[in-house]
């Protein structure tokens, strides 16, 4: 395990970086955000650290729920967004209104898949793009395009919710399947994933580490991973310096039963992001058989 010799030092770091309001910022000392708080709570749960700090974090997170059932990315933001899936992954913890959260996730649709957009693509004769956009993923922010990270994490959250028996009127399994197919449609020519665009003006785009790991994790068990994908994931792992990205790649490879290369020169300077503390903890727990992204699904 890079960066953290044992999980206790990582957990100590996470406790030290918790804000007084119970949440975690993106960076040490920064105001609390939903994404790092959600991932920090998942890491604490993975290591069964569900005491005072955990409940304080949950209390902070509950404060971000909005009337439509979704969660805002930051207290100052007046809109629910993709981070709702992180709350759903924590459900059914006390106070996480899973039913409303899953309702929000199921009703939100990316703008690039609306009927007008599909009609426009059909009239233009853009058959490849039409085939891709027909498959609805999830966007970072409402009324925008679907991308890999929010799609992959929401697929994981839906599977978690389904297995945990969280009630939903819509067919969660079908929607999660569609999300996975949308991920496959966004695979880069090299076999990995970037933010969600295969090409730009005819030029092939390359995969990036974090998103490749996330896509692999979301697709595990549903799709057989081809050799080019495994190769590119390991190449990215050898070259990334980000602890968070390395953790996502390891989680993705491990979930697919694939060996992971040794990581390259992981950034050992002062950690600059809370996710660089939380994600390695999540990987370390998964390596011991506790993958919180797939616990209810396995």
């Amino acid at each position, binding site marked *: 395990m890079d960066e953290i010799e044992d999980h206790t030092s990582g957990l100590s770091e996470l406790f030290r970086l918790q804000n007084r309001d119970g949440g975690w910022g993106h960076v040490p000392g920064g105001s609390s955000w939903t994404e790092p708080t959600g991932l920090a709570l998942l890491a604490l749960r993975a290591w069964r650290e569900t005491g005072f700090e955990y409940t304080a974090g949950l209390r902070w997170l509950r404060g971000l729920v909005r009337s439509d059932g979704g969660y805002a990315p930051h207290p*100052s933001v007046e809109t629910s*967004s993709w981070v709702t899936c992180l709350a759903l992954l924590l459900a059914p913890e006390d106070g996480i209104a899973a039913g409303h959260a899953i309702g929000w996730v199921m009703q939100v649709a990316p703008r690039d898949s609306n009927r007008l957009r599909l009609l426009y693509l059909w009239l233009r004769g853009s058959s490849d793009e039409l085939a891709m956009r027909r498959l609805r993923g999830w*966007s*970072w*922010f409402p009324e*925008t*395009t679907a991308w890999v990270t929010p799609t992959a994490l929401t697929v994981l959250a839906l599977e978690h919710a389904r297995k945990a028996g969280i009630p939903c009127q819509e067919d969660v399994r079908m929607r999660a399947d569609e999300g996975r197919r949308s991920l496959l449609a966004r695979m880069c020519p090299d076999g990995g994933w970037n933010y969600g665009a295969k090409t730009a003006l005819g030029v092939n785009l390359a995969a990036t580490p974090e998103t490749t790991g996330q896509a692999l994790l979301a697709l595990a068990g549903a799709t057989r991973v081809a050799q080019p994908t495994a190769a590119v994931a390991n190449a990215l792992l050898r070259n990334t310096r980000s602890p968070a990205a390395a953790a996502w790649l390891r989680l993705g490879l491990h979930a697919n039963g694939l060996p992971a290369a040794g990581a390259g020169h992981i*950034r050992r300077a002062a950690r600059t992001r809370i996710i660089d503390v939380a994600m390695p903890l999540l990987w370390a727990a998964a390596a011991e058989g506790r993958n919180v992204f797939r616990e209810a699904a396995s």
Partner: protein
Amino acid sequence: MRRRDVFVLPMAVAAGCGSRPRVKARVSITRCPNYGPAVYDKVRSILVRHGVKARGKRVVLKPNLVDFPFGKPVNTHPVVVHAAVEAFRALGAAEVLIAEGPGHRRETLDIADSAGYFQEIIGLDRMFVDLNLDEPVKVRIAHPRSTLDALYVARTAMSADLLVSLPKMKTHHWVGATLGMKNLFGTVSGGVYGWPKNILHWPGISKCIVDIVSLYPRIFTIVDGIIGMEGDGPLAGVSKPAGVLVAGHDTVAVDATCCRIMGIDPAKMDYLKLARTSAALSADNIEQIGETISAVETQFELMPKFQRLRI
């Protein structure tokens, strides 16, 4: 006298009556052939020449850090950024920060490291702010060109006494060129809108460029055109040495000047047309100091769809 003049001339006179003479925007062009030590003196001179007031101020430098470079000139060179840090400190700035929020990659500091920033700028980690992870503030767009009426931007950028746009001089495969104005996309919060900041694409990139610039009343721009990028910018193009630093308080005028240096007609650039009338963009309405455009112009190769932008 022609019949047409009977109508046009009185209108022209009426338009001139009582109107104040237009104040020309001042833009400097400084020759700078490489990223050697001379850059430091040149940047200092630029600030003095433009009468930039920084004493006691919180200055936020906003370079273009877009991706891991892999040998391509995609990012503002660290020497230019460091020269700006030193120059503003010499002017008595109370605080100088370096801040960026890349649109597609989340590992901002790793990008800065691979671009050589840590080697060049001692203490970077103490002065660097990842704008995507900064506290977001909702700002209303007073007169939007796009369909957006507000945006969440980084508090560090919004609260700066002086925001300094430090872009790389590059072509851009969606907009034509990316310069001082487009560089400010990096102040919009990725933590809110994600990676990429697709919220800015749907309403039209050109319109959003103008809207975002309108949020910042205090901007100074220095364009790193020492080695720019031509062709399929902003990432897949190739090096284009232009050997210049272009600077000014008026970001629109700076961009217009850069376009002329690159062989692009600013009056044909969508985002510049939205920002200002053709007359206002004309070279006659910009006070050019330092080198002349004709002395430094060098045609940047444009993608076929942008050949229409040629002067």
